[in-house]
């Protein structure tokens, strides 16, 4: 089974990220960039599928500047066979659609049975590349996949997608297809030393717009359907911020502060006879529609 995995190098959103003068700044002594966490699950799934079938190649593709090569090397260290970096100044400012276009043009040149990508990137939180990609490639799409099983038919996969309230939809999907994978699909493996050494040696070809046969108007800001016109700090959500408990470890204290602190609410106290208190609470739960009236 040949699997193409679309990955994106993103800033670690757990890290220090601030907005200054309309720009997102990734701070810290060593600004932390990672493979988008859901893309990591996609890489793992691809490697497992290849191992399961006992044949095929896992190809990673990523659109980004030269620094994204790092993410591709990490993916190879995990067990991917090949990697392509799609890099061109013309790609800058691309939205989900333009990105999908670049990916689709690339994927069409690779023999594939399956395309995997993370359901959404941590930075833009858009989650749309998969849908545009499937549309451009003209193949089926299943989103939010949390379980992948092979079937006796080599051209069909059995998938579970995450619905609300813990429910799952079981879908049979013919190949080729685009799957976007959701949290909980698998636990990604760690790189082996052998893998890291291979990744260091491996050549990662770069593809630019010209090689891919893409005109500059089709991509970047001019080819995009959506443009970010302005970036601002998030609206503060809390009303009152507690000073974190002094007994906390420095790490926990930081987590507490960066997590946005706590919102102090004006709570309604109920006191007295348990029977009376219980029925008052039930009245409240009915009001809030947690309990049928």
């Amino acid at each position: 089974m040949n699997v193409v995995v679309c990955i994106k190098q993103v800033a670690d959103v757990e890290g220090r990220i601030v907005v200054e003068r309309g720009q997102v700044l990734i701070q810290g002594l060593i600004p932390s960039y990672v493979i988008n966490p859901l893309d990591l699950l996609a890489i793992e799934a691809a490697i497992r599928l290849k191992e399961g079938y006992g044949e095929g190649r896992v190809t990673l593709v990523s659109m980004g500047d030269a620094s994204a090569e790092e993410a591709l090397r990490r993916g190879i260290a995990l067990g991917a066979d090949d990697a392509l970096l799609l890099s061109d100044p013309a790609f800058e400012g691309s939205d989900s659609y333009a990105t999908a276009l670049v990916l689709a043009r690339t994927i069409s040149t690779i023999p594939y049975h399956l395309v995997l990508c993370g359901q959404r990137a941590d930075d833009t939180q858009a989650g749309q590349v998969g849908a545009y990609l499937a549309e451009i490639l003209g193949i089926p799409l299943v989103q939010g996949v949390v379980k992948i099983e092979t079937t006796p038919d080599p051209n069909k996969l059995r998938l579970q997608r995450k619905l609300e309230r813990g429910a799952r939809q079981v879908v049979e999907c013919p190949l080729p297809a685009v799957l976007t994978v959701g949290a909980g699909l698998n636990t990604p493996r760690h790189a082996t030393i052998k893998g890291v050494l291979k990744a260091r040696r491996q050549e990662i070809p770069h593809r630019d717009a010209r090689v891919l046969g893409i005109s500059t108007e089709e991509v970047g800001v001019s080819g995009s359907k959506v443009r970010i016109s302005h970036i601002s700090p998030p609206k503060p959500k809390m009303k009152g911020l507690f000073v974190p408990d002094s007994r906390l470890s420095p790490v926990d204290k930081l987590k507490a502060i960066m997590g946005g602190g706590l919102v102090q609410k004006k709570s309604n106290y109920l006191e007295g006879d348990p029977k009376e208190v219980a029925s008052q609470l039930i009245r409240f739960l009915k009001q809030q529609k947690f309990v049928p009236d």
Partner: protein
Amino acid sequence: MLIEQQAGVLGDGALELVSEGRKIADKLDEELTAITLGDLSTEQAGLLARYGASRILTIDHPALSEQSAELYSQLLSDIIRRHSPDIVLAIHSTAGADLASRIAARLNTGLVSGCDRVEVSPEKFLVAVKPIYGGKAAATCSFSAARPQMATLNLDAIDLGTPDPNATAEVASLKVSLELEPPQTQTVDFIPGDPRSMDLSEAEVVVAGGRGLGSRANFKLVHELADVLGGSVGATRMAVDEEWIERERQIGLTGKTVRPKLFIACGISGAIQHTMGMKDSKVIVAINTDRNASIFKIADVGIVGDVLKVLPELIAQLREVMQQTTRPSLNQVVDAVSDSQR
């Protein structure tokens, strides 16, 4: 606006979405059409009208019985194409996000997903504001010339508007006989979520217990309350360390982060190690003996009392309430399904 519904009942956030849509339509001096797949009762349609829909379009098509995102998106894309609206809005639910992204791709247009806010620019274009980088920044997005301009809105970021009791809407039922491409994927099964085993991060109702329960035996009360409410059980680190419950149920800095619609904290004092994992729950109810416990500072309702006395009473009364209603709780549905499979 794409309105979700199930068996004629409006989906979560339908009225909030209509309220948002109304604001946009007013600024543009345009009509606001609510589109739903399947029929709506007069009562439900009336609600949409009072919150701002000027037209309600219910779609009827044989494919609706098939629960297929491929078919639904074809159908909706076709209707949107025919009505060529400037703006299409939907709720950023699992189904809403999936459908919107498929429709945007099909219509070759732009979509901003997971927005907290939508506005109209002075030039009368849609402007969508959404959280990025895990909410550490907000992006204001605008659209290219492609139409419609699409956005999905986060349910917890939008509010109900003021209903106009006299508002009415033109309700049209559209029987579509469009020939659809057969879906390539097939739904072969649907597995309902079992609150007792589902991952805490997916739970809508969480009942959590802490030190106040006192013993493993008493912790059963937490399970019982969760069962009546169709909720999942959570715990503080202390309860987990005492082995009253498995570690995967731990909520807090070293455990899971949950944000259910309802969180009931039983015998939990509210140490920050725990509250950081549940503070974003929509409604928080706390039961604790200590009036000064910090859990009360983040609770919507605080019950000052002995959790061992309040819980049995609450469970008994809730059981009574639940029995009177015909609607089975989620846990009962799961039981029934697994019984029938046995």
